[in-house]
């Protein structure tokens, strides 16, 4: 496992425990990471708990690689085109959103540029930005996850 993958998994586990969730799944071009926790039948010290102390006697489990898709409570905002991802409208401007921000349905989250067409990408739900998955000014593929949003009830 590469160190940046390990760091990302650690971050996901931290979100999992902080938010008291049971599962997060992130998909990339060639990699799918699912972080899941459940009540262990027997405590196993060798369980791959990547970081943090599990709450309520629940141990995080980390799975990396091809896994069956299961519904997650988080909405994933994906890129509708191949292009370059920008978190701000210009290099000097502040980002559209930060992790932890509450966003409204229809709010602009980022730009994806292709052929000098700047496409605004919006949130499909009211909710909180849990994770920004791509660095600004880097290439993105069609369907690549850009944001994880924790939708608010009723959205």
């Amino acid at each position, binding site marked *: 496992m590469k160190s940046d993958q390990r760091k990302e998994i650690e971050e996901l586990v931290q979100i999992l425990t902080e938010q008291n969730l049971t599962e997060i799944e992130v998909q990339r071009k060639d990699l799918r990471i699912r972080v899941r926790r459940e009540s262990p039948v027997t405590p196993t010290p060798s369980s791959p708990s990547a970081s943090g102390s599990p709450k309520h006697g629940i141990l995080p489990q980390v799975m990396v690689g091809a896994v069956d898709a299961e519904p997650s409570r988080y909405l994933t905002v994906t890129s509708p085109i191949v292009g370059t991802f920008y978190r701000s409208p210009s290099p000097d401007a502040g980002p559209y959103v930060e992790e932890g921000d509450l966003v409204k349905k229809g709010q602009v989250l980022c730009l994806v540029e292709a052929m000098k067409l700047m*496409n605004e990408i919006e949130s499909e739900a009211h909710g909180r930005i849990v994770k920004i998955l791509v660095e600004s000014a880097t290439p993105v593929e069609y369907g690549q996850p850009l944001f994880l949003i924790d939708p608010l009830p009723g959205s």
Partner: protein
Amino acid sequence: MKFCADPSPLSVSAIQSALGLCSLGRDMHIHDEVLSTNTMALALVDSGANHGTIVLAEQQTAGRGRWGRSWFSPPKKNLYCSVILKEVYPKDRLSWIPLITGLAITQAIEELANLRPSLKWPNDILVGDRKLGGVLCESTPQGTRRRAIVVGFGINVNSRIEEFPEDLHLSSTTLAAETGRLYDRNHLAARILSNLEVHYERLRSQSLQEVRGPYLASCSTIGRQICIRLVNGEDIKGLALDIGRDGALRLAPSIEFPHAQKSSKEVMEIRSGEVVHVR
């Protein structure tokens, strides 16, 4: 070279009478001064503007290029225009809209002036290596009622090079500087809009080759050694081979570059970055 005073101000009636039956420009707004015509057009999209609505300005105080770049926009001499496109188009051809806009502009200039500009991928309008015009397209989100593409362009028409900021003197040109005469911006705007409508309709309803062929004929990037500066500052050098199905520039790189999107081992597909033609 001497230039007389401003030949004629922008006029809705002058442009519309030259447009005839063109569906673009039936709603038209001309302002003395705006931040940028794209900013104004995006606001009009929010308030429900019709397909084909045009925004023109005599002056922009914050003319914009790609990702925060500025566009020099002095008053009353040049053309600053934005077009709102709202009608349904094949989604996989949206990324051709910036390219056909560049094509519409180069063809309009060819028709009105004794000048043959070329397109630097994707849509800079060049005379030789100097920039005569630029295009910036912005699309509003897909999921809301305000889905639209705003097509903005700026063309250096009647201003003199000496009026430009010094750092642009070698890289910019104007129609007047190239040909020694002044142009009616109303005629130029109407010609560009008519051409844009033709290419837009072809893009929507005909085979891609109907727009790709004319684009390739006007594009001076293909077949050349180029250098592309990506937004992360990385430079990629190579031979520009072709235009891909979505309008991407297909490049045979001089050496391997890990970050660009590739269609195969040998060919990279470039979708954003600043192209420099290498002599």
